[in-house]
Each structure stands twice: as C-alpha cells, then as structure tokens.
C-alpha cells in the first residue's frame, strides 16, 4: 500500500503564479522536505523517466525534452487541486491508530525521509540484475510480451554472508527507490541482498503468478516462495549464503511474514527471521479506504478525472510560466511538488491517485487471465499493436471494490468451491498466520502510530500479537521514515537477533 485515507480539510485557491511567490517566501519549509522520496517512487512506478537516444545522427542530442518523467510528476503532483474547493472529511468509524490522520503523517507518506535524517549508507553497493523464466508460468498474453521473465536484483558480498530477501510494496517492481534504501542499509551491514517485486507488480503477475489474479495473500506468497527457491537454486556457487532472512515494506511486509510461515512448514529455504515494515493487517480493508479516499478527494466518473486533469494542467502551466525556466526538468518538478502539495486535500489526492494508477495494471491483468470480461473480451484479447487508450480510460474509473467483486471473487470462488466472498476477505488478513506471529520469536515488525493504512484496532492487534517484537514509532505516516536512523538500526537489530525483547 502506498498510503490511505485520512481526515482531511482545506482547499486551495491561488493560481500558480501567486502560489509560486507566496510559498517561495518560506524556503525553510522546502528545505525540510524537498526530496520527495515517495514522489520519486510514484514517478518511477509510473515509468515516466523520459529520454531519448540518438543514433548515427547524434550531436543533435541535448534538446529540451530529456526528462519526460518530469511531465508525469508535473501533471499529477497537484492532484488535490482538482478538488481544492471541497473539504474532505473523515469517513470511517474507526480512524487511524492515533485517531489523527494529521498533516505530518500525510506529508511524511508523500515525501519520505529527508536526506539529512537518513541512516549512514555505504559508498558503493554492487548490483546485478537477474532475469529468470519460471517453468510454471502461464502463457504470456501478447500485450505483455515484455514481462516474460521475472526480474530481481542481487547485491552479493565478496565472502560468506547472510542473505536478506526484500519484497516491494503494492505494485512495486524489484528495484524501487525504497528497495534501494533498504538494499544500501542491509548491504552496509554485511548482508547479501536480493530485492524482489511485489506479487501485485504486473511483471510478477505475468512471469511468476500461478493464477494471474493478484491479491490473495496466501497464493501470492506461495508464488513468491517458489520463485525464491528457483532463484536461489541457480545462484553461482561463489555466493556463499550463511543464513536467510526475509523482509518487506507495506504489503511486501505481509508477504514476507507469510513466506516465512510457509517455509516453516515446507522447510525448503530455512528462513530464519522475518521483519515486516509498515505492514497492513487486512489487505482489503486498507484498499477499501483508498477507494474511499479517491472518491472523496478526486470524485468519481469521467467528470471527476477530467476536472482533475484540467485544473492540474492549468496549475502546472502557470507555475511553469512563473518559474521562467526553459524546460520542465527535475528541479522544476521537485519545486513544483513541494509548492503544490501542501494541504491535506492535495496530499490525500496524490496518494489516492497514485494508488489508482497502480490498480489499473492489476485489474487489466486479472481480467485478462481470469477471463472475466470486464474490460477485456476473453474471445478477442488485445493484440500487440492494438490501442489500449479506451481500456485505460475505463479502468481509471474503476475502484478496487470492483476488481474484487468482478474479477478476484469470481475467479477464486470458482477455484475454491467452499469459499465465500467473506472468507476470501478473511483469508487475506494477516490473522491467517496469527499463531505463528504470536508464538514464533523470529517474526518482527516496525510501524508508526500514525500509519494511514492501520486503524486503531489493527494496530492494537499487531501489538498484542507480536508483543515486544514490534516497535511503533510516533511519527512517519506510511513508510515516511523508511531509511531513517532509528528505523534502520532497529531493523538491523531485529534481523541479527540483537533485538532485546526482555527490555521492552
């Protein structure tokens, strides 16, 4: 999960030029948080780094359009502006753990850990990319021709060392900026590090999933576990592994814990410890909150999206004019994000929008594989070269609840004869491994009291289940403190078995 709903108020009115000048009077505000980690994460997840290459007619190269990814961020960053005038109110009975979805939590969720607060990181970390074809993979649909192989990243120590396997959060690939932070911290502490995509990443769904329908905690973890075995069995012998630990952030945290519990039964990898960083307790509850956040902060239907886009375009264009720059570059995006994403409404809309765009791929792949016919005609699936514009537009309007009711549930109800919609939801709660979490001392968790994806009950359940093996920080929102000194130091203590349970 990237983040979820919050009690939000406020709006915005000033046009871009005024906003630029007004906010620019508070440079300290920017200095505090001018590196939007989550924003970069978001941008890279949308895949819009822009570039160009020149072949034999080079020396034409340096033009004004090198960084298309800036455009993505630019067009999306002021998401909240589309709904600026409408106050957003808390809409669920059980609020976030603190009872306060405060601005600090939203800001931390969007902008991430400031660079000055980062834990010490190593100078260099070797990196190798692994592409693997998995024998159980389902036939690859034509439009996913580029996702045939699972892609993971490995940083190997020169000598024998424990291996840390890190799993990305919702829709993240195996090399997200957050994974890069964890990779640095873990490699610096002496681990081999293997980073893997989330089972909700389209590349995973196509290359690795045995169902093609993402979202089932246990099934997705089984696929992950099988992929881990396939990869580790083929690693070069020079990589000496002394121990194996798993960890993951957000939804990847829940996957890590379930993978460890599977391994406890099957014993194929002998996974030692698992650390969950900001995990959800109930996947579907958290996703429902994100749907709610989207409809509140952006609106529903074509008009809501169109309105969002138009306001966004105007805001960015005015801001760009006022800035006097000659091109939209990374600096512009950073300043625009810092300037535009101010109110809780804006931050919330950015979080909701980023999630919705992730869901588009999950929905499409699920519909294609399950042959449920919501947007893809099972008899005539799209071919390479077909336009997918209309499909994308349709999917943008569809909430997660619709994925559940029209793709996920029909598929699993058919394949699990004794299940019901209710049982499917229950099966995707962390409670399915509750006993293991409670009794096995090798499970750990880190979270924040203002994490937006947990409500009070869920946080209480985590605390009660894990006891002294969970650390709850006061602030950080959802993953907004990933990589900071305390988080990294505690994570390393947990992984190494140094976490002093009795003192807590």
């Amino acid at each position, binding site marked *: 999960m990237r983040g979820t709903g919050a009690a939000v108020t406020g709006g915005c009115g000033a046009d871009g030029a005024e906003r630029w000048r007004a906010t620019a*009077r508070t*440079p300290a505000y*920017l200095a505090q948080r*001018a*590196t939007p980690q989550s924003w970069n994460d978001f941008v*890279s997840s949308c*895949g819009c*780094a822009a*570039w*160009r*290459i*020149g072949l*034999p007619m080079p*020396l*034409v*190269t340096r*033009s*004004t*359009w090198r*960084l*298309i*990814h800036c*455009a993505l961020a*630019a*067009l999306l960053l002021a998401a909240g502006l589309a709904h600026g005038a409408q106050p957003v109110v808390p809409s669920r009975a059980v609020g976030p753990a603190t009872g306060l979805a405060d601005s600090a939590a939203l800001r931390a969720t969007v902008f991430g850990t400031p*660079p000055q607060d*980062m834990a*010490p990181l190593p*100078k260099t*970390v070797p*990196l190798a990319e*692994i592409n*693997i*074809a998995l024998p159980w993979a389902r036939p690859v649909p034509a439009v996913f021709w*580029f*996702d045939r192989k699972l892609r993971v990243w490995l*940083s190997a120590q020169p000598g024998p060392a424990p291996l840390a396997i890190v799993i990305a959060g919702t829709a993240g*690939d195996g*090399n997200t900026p957050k994974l890069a932070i964890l*990779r640095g911290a873990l490699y610096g502490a002496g681990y081999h590090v293997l980073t893997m995509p989330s089972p909700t990443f389209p590349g995973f769904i196509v290359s690795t999933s045995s169902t093609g329908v993402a979202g089932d905690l246990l099934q997705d973890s089984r696929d992950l576990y099988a992929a881990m075995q*396939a990869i580790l069995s083929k690693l070069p012998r020079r990589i000496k592994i002394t121990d194996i630990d798993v960890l993951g952030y957000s939804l990847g945290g829940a996957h890590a814990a379930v993978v460890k519990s599977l391994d406890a039964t099957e014993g194929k990898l002998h996974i030692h410890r698992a650390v969950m960083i900001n995990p959800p307790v109930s996947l579907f509850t958290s996703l429902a909150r994100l749907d709610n956040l989207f409809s509140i902060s952006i609106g529903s239907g074509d008009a809501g999206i169109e309105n969002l*886009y138009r306001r966004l375009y105007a805001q960015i*264009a*005015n801001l760009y*004019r*006022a*800035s*006097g*720059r*000659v*091109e939209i570059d990374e*600096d512009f995006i950073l*300043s625009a994000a810092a300037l535009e994403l101010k109110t809780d409404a804006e931050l919330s809309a950015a979080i909701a929008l980023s999630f919705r765009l992730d869901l588009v*791929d999950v929905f*499409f792949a699920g519909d294609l594989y399950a042959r449920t016919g919501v947007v893809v005609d099972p008899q005539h699936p*799209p071919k390479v*070269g077909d*336009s*997918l514009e209309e*499909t994308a537009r349709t999917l943008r309007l569809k909430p997660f609840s619709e994925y559940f009711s029209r793709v996920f549930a029909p598929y699993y109800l058919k394949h699990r004869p004794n299940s019901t919609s209710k049982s499917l939801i229950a099966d995707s709660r962390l409670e399915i491994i509750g006993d293991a979490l409670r009794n096995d001392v090798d499970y750990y968790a880190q979270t924040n009291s203002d994490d937006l994806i947990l409500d009070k009950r869920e946080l209480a359940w985590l605390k009660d289940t894990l006891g002294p093996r969970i650390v709850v920080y006061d602030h950080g929102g959802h993953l907004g403190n990933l990589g900071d000194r305390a988080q990294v130091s505690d994570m390393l203590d947990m992984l190494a078995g140094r976490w002093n349970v009795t003192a807590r």
Partner: protein
Amino acid sequence: MRTASTLVLLAAALCGCASQQMSIRSLPPDTPAADNAAAAENASELAAAIATEVTSEGGQGSATNAPPVTPADAPSMYTYDPWERFNRFTYRFNARFDEAILLPVSNGYRRLPSAVRAGIHNFFGNLSEVPSVINYALQWRLIPSARSLGRFAINSSLGLGGLFDVAKKLKLPSEPTGLSTTLSKWGMHPGPYLVIPFLGPSTLRDGVGLVGDYGASHVVNVADLYRGNEAWALGAADVIDERANISFRYYATGSPFEYETIRFLYVRKRLIEDEGLHRKALPKKHDVDAPAGQ
C-alpha cells in the same frame, strides 16, 4: 563481411535468441551515500533558488503580460496520434534495441570514473551551445543567445575544449534551446505524435527541430568534428553518454499501457513548455475537443 556479421548479431540480440532460463547481468554499482548527499544538497539549493526567485521580483520568469492558463485552456485528454500503428511498432522496436544494444553499452560506459564521464558530458554539452546560439537568435531572444555564445567561448577556451563547465561556475548555467522551441515560438503546434526510430518519443514539430539542429551543427562544423573521418566515433560517444545519463528503462513499469502513458505525458509536457514561451499572448485558441497536439 563486417557489416553482415554485425547485422546477424543485431538480429540475434533483437530476437532474444540468446535467452536462457536464468541470466545474471552485472550492473554499475549503486552509490547510496553519494546519492543521499546529492539529494541533501539539492534540497538546500532548491530552497535557495526559490528564495532568489522571490527577491528578483519577476525577473525572466515574470508572467505579468499573459493571462493565466485556466482549466478550460487545457488540451483534450486524448492525444493526436494519426500514425499510431507505426508509432507503436517503432516504440516496441526501440525498446528491444535499447535492451539489446544501447543499455548494455551505456552500462559499461557508466563504469568509467565519474570525472571522465563528467568531462565527456560537458564536452558534448558545450557543442550543443551551437544550435542554442542560433535558435535563441531566431527566437529574438538576444541576451540568452549571447549567453550561450559566451558559454561556448568560455568553455571552449578556459574549459579546455569544453571538458570543464567553467561558465557554470561563473554563474552562466546552461539553458539549451533548439529549433523545435523556435518553431513553437513562431506559433507552430506540436502536430502528430511521432515515435522516431532509435530516438524515442517526439512530435512532428520536434522531429523537424531535431533534423534542423543537426543540420545547423553540421553546417557550423566546429573544429571539423562533424565532417571529419572520426565523426562517427564522436557521434557514437555522444549517444552513449546521453543514454548513460538517462535513467529510463523501457517497460520497467511492466505495464501494457506504457505507450499511452508516455504519449500522454510527452505531449502535455511540450504543451506546457509552449505555454511558457508565450508570455505576452496565448496562442490562438484551438478547438477544445481536438486531440492534444493537433
């Protein structure tokens, strides 16, 4: 013979016939400590830049003469792409070519010491001042044109042929422009979206601009670099340097909608940049329902 073997290798790579069940490809190492230090520095520079922006009261960026862009001025969410079939084919070809050839080569290049790479990057950056000087003049922006000329003169001499960006240290940062911007300034719309083979996303106007900029560089032919016997090697180095400085990877999104996303963003980015060029009056309002770029 050499050409034939190159073609066979290229075809093999593009077809992916070298594929195996599991492959491990070594990449340039991550540099987290330096990256974080750079992020911290950028954060403070950003704050300082914005503070300066305020005190300079408008400056170059003043939008005083232009009516603000309103939501009604935003182009349609559809993009003008009459050559979509060709473009999609080209996008896919570019993706394969990049994965098989350019990316591995530029990854190798990234293993050179950073000082060497910076020198190479500055060198090519300096050469690109040539079209900037000409195009700023064509846009009737004589001060930036003179600045680009000054940068070229300073970096070519004090910067040892452009290897060092001395002008930046003298507070003359690079602000490149090109023919496509000039055409935009003269009122030309972007036209149809166009994915250029090997080059990537563009529009008809930007494609014409590229050819024009190349022609200008060729005509000026600084130090006989463009017409000499080694011109091809220099060109290849430029391509590799350019690619190595761009973090984009085709289909890293894993998404089948990547073509649509890039098209949407590229054209909006260029349209917003066009808005920035027209500070005195907006271009004539086009049909609001027409696809963006038309």
